């Protein structure tokens, strides 16, 4: 299981990225929180599935322009 925050900009807000993540890959997506505004939006997702499959799915999301981050912010602190 992974918890991630996807950040979308501009055109991607209108794209069904979360749907495609579950359709293209063997991943169960569960939206826990989200906020979409003009020009920017984010979704906090719970992802269930094989670790390697989740990695592939998130890599695909990055390639289409979605920013993928840890759900609760960076854990590596200066």
């Amino acid at each position, binding site marked *: 299981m992974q918890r991630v925050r996807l950040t979308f900009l501009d055109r991607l807000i209108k794209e069904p990225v979360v749907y495609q993540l579950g359709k293209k890959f063997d991943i169960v997506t569960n939206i826990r929180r989200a906020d979409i505004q003009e020009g920017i939006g984010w979704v906090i997702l719970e992802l269930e599935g094989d670790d390697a499959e989740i990695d592939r799915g998130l890599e695909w999301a990055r390639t289409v322009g979605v920013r993928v981050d840890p759900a609760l912010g*960076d854990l590596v602190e200066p």
Partner: protein
Amino acid sequence: MTHVTSLRCKECSREYPVGAFNVCEFCFGPLEVRYDLDAIKAAVSRESIAAGPNSLWRYAEFLPADHNPDVDINAGFTPLIRSKGLADKLGLEELWIKNDSVNPSYSFKDRVVAVASAKALELGFDTLACASTGNLACAVAAHAARGNMKAYVFIPSDLEAGKVLGAAIYGPTMIAIDGTYDDVNRLCSELADTYPWAFVNINIRPFYADGSKTLGFEVAEQLGWRAPAHVVAPSASGAMFTKIYQGFNEFAYTGLIGKVETKMHCVQARGCSPIATAYEEGRLIIRPVRANTIAKSLGIGNPADGYYALKVIEASGGSAVIAEEHEVAEGIKLLAEADGIFTEGAGGVAVAGLRRLVARGTIKPDEPTVLYITGNGLKTTEVVADVVHPIHIEATVAAFQDAIGARA
């Protein structure tokens, strides 16, 4: 004794019993510590606090852990200095510098780790852990050493070894992880779920964060029991910034100071400014960035408390400012030359932000202002290495006098 009542989700307000977890099971929102502020109000007075230890534990009634001398390295109660040189240069009548660079491991991180480590012992942990490239690693390793606890410090493998010397000296187990920054983040999240350790900024984070409230408490007490008109503070995750404001407000609620009218100003460097950029664009959504700033101790591109920092700015009538990268070293040098305080990059960013706030008229000359300096310059000497240019002379008095252009 503590006056903690529960942990509560900052997003959906669900309550949880006190324990080592930081995430709401329902909405994945961050948890924060809730207190019985009325019980605190009944328990404290200016006199009782003033009679307490010269450390952050003088505010123990407001903290989520009891004071434990076994793990205490005397963090906090650092000097609040009335600026002369910088105040004169900027035309400010009442500028104060909170010099938190003189904590035991030389940064404000000792405050958060002091509370986290005391709470970790209370909760039965024997191991402290963190993922850090700098100040946090030092604070964790130092407290673990004092508390006879095991310590694990995770660092990216491409980090220069010298960067973590300040942590390594305390003898933690240091793990260098091959992979990207994201890989390190993810591994630490998995380890925090797997090992029975107190990962200070993960499963202990609600308690850890509240250590920074003491930066608000101390300033209010040291100013003679009042909050300033302006706070100027550097920000990375946004947690410290929000907790300073919470500290002022808890003091006001409990009657120790009057109404808080402090405007909170957050400063970030151009190379990592997700909070300040959102502020400038007039939105409350943080767009994460890849950190690329000379102010390494502010290098958090995906700030956990960025949204809450923006809310504090909004609630207080404050602002956010971006310091250009070239201003970082300038700010460090200015503070050193003007007031005799040698700070790291984050301090240079704060000084640069203060200059901008004064220049744009946000801070008026007669308004009491506190500048937070959160880390020590000796940790990042490479940023200002160009200041070293001695005058070379022969070993004679005449050569000396020729060099400085003055004869006795």
